């Protein structure tokens, strides 16, 4: 059974289509890059998978079921914004996750907290943006989820920290689980990808194995991505 399956998925905002007939299958045990320019529909697709948006038509199935309590128990989601109560401390956030997610590993979270030099008792409202992002990442990666959905985990982070974030992701996700990473910073993540999904103006432009793409096109994913958009731009002109 596919981990995620999108069937004729459409989403409109005030009549304006943002996702157009998206058909997609994601298998277990893969690291998938959801790639596309800003505004291509990556976040919208991720929000629908996480039950944060209702599709206009079509459906998403997670392990054969519509998004709900069961899917939320197996998906660990890192949004692109700060979602923690700013009055909490990292210690309280860890307790919160421990209370609600049965797959949450408190020891791993506390170890990562130390590795990241975050103060357990500092209020989240007093933390910098980078510190908050690190905290959210450690909370998300401390779960033994079947699918990790990471929306722009590298956005707004310096190159050195990007490597650290990628290492944290790779060294903490459960074996056999899948990771869906949305980003437009392809060169930074392409080394870890098994599959790539290109999304362009709300449509799936390409869904292929990363190795297959590299061999067939004889170039890196980043180069292919740039060339793809250059061609699109020329076509439009």
């Amino acid at each position, binding site marked *: 059974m596919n981990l995620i399956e999108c069937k004729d998925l459409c989403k409109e905002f005030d009549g304006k289509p943002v996702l157009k007939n998206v058909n997609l299958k994601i298998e277990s045990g893969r690291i998938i890059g959801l790639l596309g320019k800003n505004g291509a529909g990556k976040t919208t697709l991720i929000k629908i998978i996480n*039950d*944060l948006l*209702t599709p206009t038509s079509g459906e998403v199935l997670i392990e054969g079921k519509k998004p709900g309590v069961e899917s939320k*128990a197996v998906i660990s989601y890192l949004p692109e*914004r700060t979602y923690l109560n700013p009055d909490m401390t990292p210690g309280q956030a860890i307790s919160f996750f421990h209370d*609600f997610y049965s797959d949450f590993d408190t020891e791993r979270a506390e170890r990562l907290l130390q590795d990241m030099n975050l103060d357990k008792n500092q209020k989240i409202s007093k933390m910098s943006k980078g510190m908050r992002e690190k905290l959210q990442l450690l909370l998300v990666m401390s779960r033994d989820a079947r699918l990790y959905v990471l929306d722009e985990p590298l956005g707004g982070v310096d190159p050195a920290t990007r490597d650290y974030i990628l290492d944290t992701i790779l060294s903490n996700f459960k074996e056999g689980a899948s990771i869906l990473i949305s980003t437009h910073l392809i060169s930074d993540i392409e080394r870890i990808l098994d599959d790539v999904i290109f999304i362009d103006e709300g449509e799936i432009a390409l869904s292929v194995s990363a190795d297959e793409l590299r061999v067939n096109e004889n170039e890196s994913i980043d180069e292919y991505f740039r060339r793809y958009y250059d061609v699109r731009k020329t076509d439009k002109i």
Partner: protein
Amino acid sequence: MLGKLIKYDLKGIIRPLSVFYILGVTFSVLARIFNEVQNSIIFQVVGKITTVIATCIIISSLLFCLVQLWARFERGLFKDEAYLTHTLPVKIQTIYASKCIVGLISTVTTMVIALLSLFIGYYSEENLQAVRSSLELTAGIYDTTVVRLLLLVAFVSLLEAVFIMLVGYAGIVLGYRSNKNKNIRSVTIGVGLYLAMQVLTLGIVFVIGLFQPEVMNLIKTVNFGMDPVWAIKLLMYAGIGIYIVYSIGYYILGEKVLEKGVNVD
């Protein structure tokens, strides 16, 4: 899961409210201390000022409680924190129930603290006697006991507060069905729903009046003490029943709309 949600929701709402609680009680104590000193004009002036401040804080704590509840509801279900709320492995009905139960608990707590602050600030033998006399008089008119009357007043006040809270929640839930001007829509829908229910209540009372001439007479010329007690009681109990039905109705409305799915910003 409901218990855990209530625990975290309560922690979140009580923290900002406790500032008002502490200020209200503190100014009530100060007012009491300054007002006790009779032979100093300065103390009397300061006493009057602290009394006014205490009263303002007590009244505003009730309003602040409602505003905080709405703000936290919006933040938790439709703003940044919604990204966590809606990805918890919990049914949306449970999340909504938690918000409503916490609203009820914090409203009761705020009312109790407000009464406590009033008691601290205004208690004296004369004041107590005056309140007792007026309560006994009112209870006598309505053929009931003081305790029952107090319980009834407390229940009606709580019911009104819960009704307003639920109208606000329903306004936010419906306002966020749209993709544009969500805040303005939420406020407009909330106020509209509240006014619609007030008009409907008047309509129901009018219909009762059509069948009970004494009730109609009561609506036209309110003259407490002269009007038939049974008619006033009938209206009071009808009002309570109507507001219970409205509150349940709005609770179900909010729940059903949320069940259809959300569109988080």
